[in-house]
């Protein structure tokens, strides 16, 4: 399992109700359910991935988060998880609001567009950045709304979202983001993981 999922699993711990939005083939859900006895549900737009999850015994609904999240009652999950998907929505702000409504707490991870390799790529090559985390060309990328760690922190401040924890990941190494190191982390982190409410 990738480091990001390890971190998310550690935050969630045991016996919680979790909704994984854009759960893919259910790797995180599987770990949360079978290793940490969480009660987990998933939402995934791709049929083949939904069926993979079902085969693993996971309860996943085929559907698009931008349309389907309204059906879940307020605070019906301890955690709503959105892993590296926020940037792919047409209206990320609306999706985020739904997550905050459904989950008592929400875990959001974002690929950091402020990462130095991304910056250098644009600066020197003059083309849209391609990195390990952002492997697609501008014309076929699912990512519509890329942002940086700094952008996300600013957004939370402006919209009164409380950040309980912020972590970042660089080459499998995890560290905390603080007010003091934000500028630095925004350059040297590939991924930001936020626990918000």
């Amino acid at each position, binding site marked *: 399992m990738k480091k990001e999922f390890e971190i998310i699993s550690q935050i969630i711990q045991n016996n919680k*109700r979790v909704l994984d939005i854009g759960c893919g083939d259910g790797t995180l859900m599987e770990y949360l359910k079978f290793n940490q006895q969480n*009660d987990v*549900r998933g939402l995934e737009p791709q*049929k083949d991935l*939904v*069926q993979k*999850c*079902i*085969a*693993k*015994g*996971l*309860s*996943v*609904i*085929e*559907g698009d988060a931008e349309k389907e999240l309204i*059906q*879940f*009652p307020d605070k*019906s999950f301890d955690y709503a998880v959105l892993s590296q998907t926020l940037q792919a929505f047409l209206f990320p702000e609306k999706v985020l609001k739904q997550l905050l409504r459904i989950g008592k707490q929400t875990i959001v991870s974002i690929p950091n567009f402020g990462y130095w390799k991304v910056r250098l790529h644009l600066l020197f090559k003059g083309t849209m950045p391609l990195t390990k985390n952002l492997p697609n060309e501008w014309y076929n990328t699912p990512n519509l709304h890329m942002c940086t760690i700094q952008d996300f922190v600013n957004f939370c401040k402006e919209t009164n979202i409380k950040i309980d924890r912020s972590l970042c990941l660089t080459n499998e190494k995890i560290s905390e983001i603080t007010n003091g190191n934000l500028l630095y982390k925004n350059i040297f982190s590939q991924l930001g993981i936020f626990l918000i409410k």
Partner: protein
Amino acid sequence: MPSLAGLFFCLKQKMNKKTKNIKKLIVNQSLELDCGKIIKNFPIAYETYGTLNKNKSNAILVFHALSGDQFVTNINPITKKEGWWANAVGPGKAIDTDKYFVICVNVLGGCMGSFGPKEINPDTNELFGTTFPVITIRDMVRAQIYLLEYLGIDKLLAITGGSMGGMQVLQFASLYPNKTYSAIPIACSASHSAQNIALNELGRQAIMADPNWNNGNYFKTTLSPDKGLAVARMAAHITYLSKQGLQEKFGRKLQDAESLKFSFDANFQIESYLRHQGTKFVDRFDANSYLYITRAMDYFDLEKQFNGNLSLAFKNTKSKFYVISFSSDWLYPTIENKEIVMALNACGANVGFVEIDSDKGHDSFLLEVPEFLKTLSEFLNSTYKEINNEKRI
């Protein structure tokens, strides 16, 4: 010329002979139907496949649809045709009878041995016909509980069924929140839409317009409303297919001819196909049963049973649900299946959902649709594994 009474006796004997070898449970408890009538000592005909395991944790109750019966797979002993869900049920199939114990009951109102309009009213010693009480999906489901009691099964591994079978799944899960580990409603709806009712009414009117129907008393004559029932079946059959599926299979292909015949014979293959479906159906189905069962479907409104809040229907459920719909099904479209999913989510139930891509319309659940059969099999597998691990602890 034989007297009417004598003729009736003949018919009765013929029918009894036909359904003699069917497994039947005579329920001697009384059951109050939704219409208020109380029935007792009524038969429910059923069939089982596979073997019930020691801890009785491998039983799957399959509910049949409008035109189905208890003979899910193998050769139906009455019609001599393959069972209606042979694609999904059998050794090595998605619902593997080498592994699971499959039960199916002919619904109340049916015509394959269960209490229905073709049975004899003990009070009058005549066939019921249209004096049979109007039954509901809820009545059908409640009647089947007696069989589970008789078989000594406290909790099923799964309940499943498509179309009207799916409605029974929903009703069962709502009535008995702790009697099944999992529930798989397929291509169905929690309440029959105006379009569904309209199409059923079309079928009923076709039967009633046949003079041989004789207000439902055709069993007292030598005639039966075959034409009406065949037309009902033809109309219904169109609703089970998709436009694209029909176009691909038949297009404008002609039947045994190079050019148009300039007549009202079956010029086109689709006409000939539908006529064949109609005629075939008449041989195995009772017209009055068709009226009663379609009525039960029309009356089905689980939402209304819970004052307009469908999620209350599943408030206490402990079952794990897997709702499946088909992309080209316009009779019970994905949106109606999704309403079930939404209601389940609204009450925090455990639910998965997928829409299977298929151009075969509503009938997809009966046909060889590999992606559907695969996911059905995998869901059952994982559920079975989970339960049996649980029991080991």
